[in-house]
C-alpha cells in the first residue's frame, strides 16, 4: 500500500526527568498541507517539534518513544543535521540568530554559497571561499518573498524583534531541499501586518508542495490558514480536526478543557487630579516604530492603554520613556523631570517595564524560577534580604513563598519554584518575566504585549492580575497592545497612536467606528 504521507509521527512519547510531557501522539502530514498545532502553554508543542528536528535537549535527556517516518520510511532523526538532510526545516520558538553576523550571513548560516579557492583543490570543500554576491542575492530573494525592505547587509544585533523573526523565516524559505517547515510561534513577536504577510508567504510555500507545521496561540490565524488542526492538552492528543469543521471558540475549549468567558470592562472610574506621567513632544528613534512627538498626561492609579496599527509608533512610547531607544523631549514623573536615554535612571524613578520582546530575553536560563522572579527586586530594591548583623543574606523562605504566590496567580506551569527556567515552555518563561516586573511593585508599570505567546486561558489570568494590582495597590499601569479587545477590556482610557503621534484618546465604551477612524489615521483636527 503506497502511503501518500510525507511525514508521519507515530505514538510519540517523551519524558523529561521522569515527568511524562508527551504521550501517544500521532500526526500525519501530506505534501502542501498546512497543519496547525495548538495547545496551552506547556502542552508539549515545542517538545514534539524538537523531537522532529533531532534537537540535542531531546537526546541528552533520554531520547523519545515512537517512530518517525519520512516518505513512508522509518528514520532515526538524532541531530538537527540529520533533520535537515531529511528536508525538515524549523523556525524555533527562541531566536537562533548570531547577532554579530549580517542578515545575509544569518540566512545562509552553514549553507553559504562557495567558490573555489587556491586551497580548496587540496583541502576540499571547507577551504572554499564564501561567495558573498550570490549569498546576498539569495538572501534578497528570500526577503522579497516576505516583502521586507531591509538591507540584507545589516547586522542583526539591534534589529527590532520583528525583523529578527522574519530573518529566521527567510532562512527557511531560502532552503532549496525542504519538504517540511516547522514554524514554532512565528507570529508571536510580529505586528499584525507582518503576521499577515507571513501567512500569505506560508500559503505560497504550501502551494509549492511544501508541508507546514504551524504553532500559534492566535486561533483566528489557525482557522484562516490551516487545513488540519491538532489539539494537545497536557501532553496528550485531544483532537485532530479539519479547519472547516471547527471554530476558534471550540478550539479554545478543547485546549483548556473548559469554556472561556470574555472579560468585560468595569465601570468608569474617577481619579484625583494627580499626574503620574506627563510627556511633551516625546520623540523616540526606534527603528520601525518611530515616535514623532507625543504629548500625554496619565493620572495616578489609572490603567492606560496605548493602541494602534503596527509601525505607527505605539511600541516606541514605552521604549523611549524607559530609555531603551534614543529619545528627545520632556517627561515628568510625579511632576519631576526624568532624564531620557538611561534605563537605570528610569528604573530608579520607580518605573518598570515588561518589554514586548521577551523571547528568552533577560532570563537566567540556568537559574531557578524563584530566583528569576525576585532577582531585579533583590538587586535594585534590596527586597528579600535579611539582616544578620553585618551580613545581609537572601531571605530564602520569603522568596520561596512569594514565588509560590506568583506561580499560582499567573498559572506558571512548572514543577515548583526551584525548577530551572530553561526547563519551562516558552509561554511559561514569559510569565516568569511578567512576574518579575510585578514583584518590583513599581509606581508605574509599562507592559507591552503582555499576552503574546500566552495561551487563551492564561491570557485572562495575566490581565486579571494586572487589574488587581492596579486596583489594590493603586499602581499606574500603561499597557501597549496590538489587540484592541484586550485594551478595551481592562483600560480606563486608550490612546491610539498613528504616524508617531496621538490620534486621539478614547474610552473603552466608545463605539467601534471611532476606534476604526483613529486607527486609520483620521486624526481629530486640533482646533477644528
Amino acid at each position, binding site marked *: 500500500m503506497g502511503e501518500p504521507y510525507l511525514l508521519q509521527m507515530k505514538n510519540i512519547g517523551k519524558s523529561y526527568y521522569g515527568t511524562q510531557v508527551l504521550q501517544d501522539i500521532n500526526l500525519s502530514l501530506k505534501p502542501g498541507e498546512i497543519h496547525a498545532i495548538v495547545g496551552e502553554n506547556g502542552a508539549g508543542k515545542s517538545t514534539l517539534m524538537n523531537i522532529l528536528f533531532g*534537537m540535542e535537549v531531546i537526546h541528552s535527556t533520554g531520547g523519545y518513544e515512537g517512530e518517525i517516518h519520512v516518505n513512508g520510511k522509518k528514520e532515526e532523526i538524532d*541531530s*538537527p*543535521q540529520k533533520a*535537515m538532510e531529511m528536508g525538515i526545516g524549523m523556525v*524555533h520558538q*527562541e*531566536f*537562533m*540568530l*548570531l*547577532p*554579530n*553576523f549580517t542578515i545575509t*550571513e544569518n540566512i545562509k*548560516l*552553514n549553507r*553559504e554559497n*562557495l567558490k573555489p*579557492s587556491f586551497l580548496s583543490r587540496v583541502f576540499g*570543500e*571547507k*577551504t*572554499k*571561499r*564564501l561567495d558573498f554576491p550570490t549569498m546576498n542575492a539569495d538572501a534578497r530573494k528570500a526577503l522579497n518573498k516576505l516583502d521586507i525592505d531591509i538591507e540584507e547587509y545589516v547586522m*542583526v*544585533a*539591534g*534589529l527590532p*524583534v520583528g525583523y*529578527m523573526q522574519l530573518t529566521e523565516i527567510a532562512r527557511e524559505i531560502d532552503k532549496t531541499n525542504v519538504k517540511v517547515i516547522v514554524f514554532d510561534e512565528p507570529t508571536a513577536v510580529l505586528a499584525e501586518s507582518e503576521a499577515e504577510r507571513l501567512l500569505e508567504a506560508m500559503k505560497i510555500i504550501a502551494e509549492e508542495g511544501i508541508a507546514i507545521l504551524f504553532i500559534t496561540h492566535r486561533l483566528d490565524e489557525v482557522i484562516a490558514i490551516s487545513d488540519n488542526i491538532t489539539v494537545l492538552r497536557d501532553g496528550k492528543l485531544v483532537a485532530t480536526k479539519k479547519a472547516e469543521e471547527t471554530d476558534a471558540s471550540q478550539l479554545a475549549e478543547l485546549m483548556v478543557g473548559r469554556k472561556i468567558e470574555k472579560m468585560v470592562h468595569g465601570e468608569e472610574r474617577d481619579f484625583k487630579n494627580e499626574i503620574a506621567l506627563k510627556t511633551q513632544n516625546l520623540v523616540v*528613534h*526606534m527603528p520601525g516604530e518611530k515616535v514623532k512627538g507625543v504629548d500625554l498626561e496619565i493620572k495616578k492609579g489609572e490603567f492606560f492603554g496605548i493602541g494602534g496599527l503596527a509601525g505607527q509608533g505605539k511600541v516606541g512610547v514605552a*521604549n523611549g520613556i524607559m*530609555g*531603551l*531607544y*534614543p529619545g528627545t523631549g520632556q517627561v515628568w514623573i510625579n511632576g519631576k523631570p526624568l532624564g531620557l*536615554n538611561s*534605563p*537605570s535612571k528610569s*528604573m530608579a524613578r520607580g518605573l*518598570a*517595564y*515588561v*518589554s514586548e*520582546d521577551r523571547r*528568552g*530575553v*533577560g532570563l*537566567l*536560563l540556568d537559574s531557578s524560577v524563584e530566583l528569576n522572579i525576585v*532577582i*531585579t527586586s533583590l*538587586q535594585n530594591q534590596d527586597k528579600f534580604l535579611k539582616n544578620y548583623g553585618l551580613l545581609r543574606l537572601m531571605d530564602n523562605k520569603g522568596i520561596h513563598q512569594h514565588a509560590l504566590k506568583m506561580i499560582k496567580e499567573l498559572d506558571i506551569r512548572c514543577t515548583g519554584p526551584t525548577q530551572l527556567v530553561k526547563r519551562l515552555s516558552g509561554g511559561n518563561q514569559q510569565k516568569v*518575566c511578567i512576574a*518579575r*516586573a510585578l514583584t*518590583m511593585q513599581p509606581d508605574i508599570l509599562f507592559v507591552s504585549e503582555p499576552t503574546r505567546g500566552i495561551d487563551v486561558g492564561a491570557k485572562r489570568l495575566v490581565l486579571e492580575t494586572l487589574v488587581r494590582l492596579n486596583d489594590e495597590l493603586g499602581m499606574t499601569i500603561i499597557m501597549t497592545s496590538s489587540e484592541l479587545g484586550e485594551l478595551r477590556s481592562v483600560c480606563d482610557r486608550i490612546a491610539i497612536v498613528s504616524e508617531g503621534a496621538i490620534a486621539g484618546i478614547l474610552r473603552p465604551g466608545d463605539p467601534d467606528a471611532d476606534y476604526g477612524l483613529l486607527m486609520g489615521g483620521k486624526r481629530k483636527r486640533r482646533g477644528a
Partner: protein
Amino acid sequence: MLTPNSIPEEKVKLSNKQIIIKFLTNNMVTIMFIVLGLAGFFIAGMNPFLFLFDIVARMSRNSFLVLSLIIPVVAGMGLNFSIVLGAMAGQALLIFVTHWGITGLPGILLCIVLVTPLSMFLGYLTGKLFNKAKGQEMIAGLILAFFAQGIYELIFLQLVGGIIPMENRVLIMGQGIGVRTTVDLTDGLKYGLDWPGLSWGMPNLLRPTLPWTIIVGVIVLLVGYLAYILFFKGKRASMPKLISAAAVGGFLVYWSVNQIQTASMINMVRIPLLTWFVILALCLFIVFFSKTKLGQDMRSVGQDRHVAAVSGIQVDRVRVIAIMMSMVMASWGHIIFLQNMGAFSTYGSHEQIGLYSVAALLIGGATVTKATIGQALLGVFLFHTLFIVSPSAGRQLFGDAQVGEYFRVFVAYGVIGATLAMHAWRKLLQRKGELGV
C-alpha cells in the same frame, strides 16, 4: 540564544564626550602601554638606534607566535595557553635536527616538516580535551601546559640517551642520559630562516639594511598598486586614502635616503627578509582563512555554540580544528623564535611562551572574545618596547636594572590577570543590563 534587550542601549546616540570616554575605556590597556612605553623610552634616555635595532629583531622573532593565538579567539575558545605544547614540539625538533647535524635553512625546513604532524596530533588531543571542558578552555590550557612540562622533562631528562638513543657529546649530559640544560644553535640552525639579513657568511653588501628595505618596499608597493589598477582593472582607493598613503610613503623614503646619506648607525639594522615574508604570509593566510567556509564556521561557533549546532555545524570538530591550527602555528612560531635567539634553555624556554604571547596580544587591545592581526602586531611592538626600555629605565629610577626586570614580569602577569578580571566583570555587567526587565 539572542538577547536583544541588551543591544538597544548601544544605539543611543552618544555625545562627543561620551564617545571619547568610551574610546578611552575600551582601549585603556593599549593606551596605558603607549604612555608607559614613551615614558620609559625617555626616562631610559634610550638611544633610538639601539631601540630600533632591538625592536626589529624582537618583532621578527615574536610576531608569529602571537599571531598563532588569533584563531582560537575567533572560535570562541579564548586565550589559548596550550600553545606551550606546540612550543615544546618545536623545541624537540630543534634538538633532534641539531643532533642530526643538518644546518641552515634546510635544517629549519626539516624541523617544520617534521613538527607539523606532531603538533597536529598534540592539537587534536588538546582540542578533544577542550571539548570536554567547554567554557573552561583557558584554565584547562594552563593546567595542560604544566602537565605537558612533566612529560617533556621525563622524555628529555630520562629517556633521551637511554630508551631513545642519542649519542652526542655536545647535547647529552656527561652520564650519557638526558639533554643538557642549554642547547646552542650557533653554527647550526641559528639564523637558519633569517635570510639574508642575519645569515652567516652572507657578504655584507647583500644583507639588506633597514633604510634600503624601506625604499625597496615602498617602490614594490607603488608598482604593485599601479599594476593592480592598470593591468587587473582593480578598484581605485579613495582620494584621502591615497594622499595619506603617499604622504607616509614619501616621508619614509625621505627618511631612509637621509639615513643612507648620513651613513648613520641605522644602516646597521639588518632585515631578515625571509622571516618577514613568512610573517606576512601568515597574516595574509589568516585574512584569507576568515573568508573561507571553515573560517565562517569558526566565527559562528565563536558567537554561539548552540545556534551553530542547531544549524548543523559540527561544533566540536570545528573547535578541534581551530586548536590544531593554532598548535601548528605555535610550533612554527617557536622554531622561528629560537633560530633567531641562537640558544635556548632546554627545560625553560617554552614555559614563558604562553604567558608572554598572551600578554602581548592583550596589550594590543585584544580581548578574550576578539582579536585581530593589527592588535597582535601592535601588542608585540608595545610589549617588547617595554622589555627594551624597562631595564635602563629601572636603572635610572632606582639605580638597579633588576627592578626593571621585575617590573616587566609583573606587567605580563598583571595584564593577563587584569584582562581576565575585566572579562568577568563585563560579563557580569552585561547580565545586570539584561536583568532590567
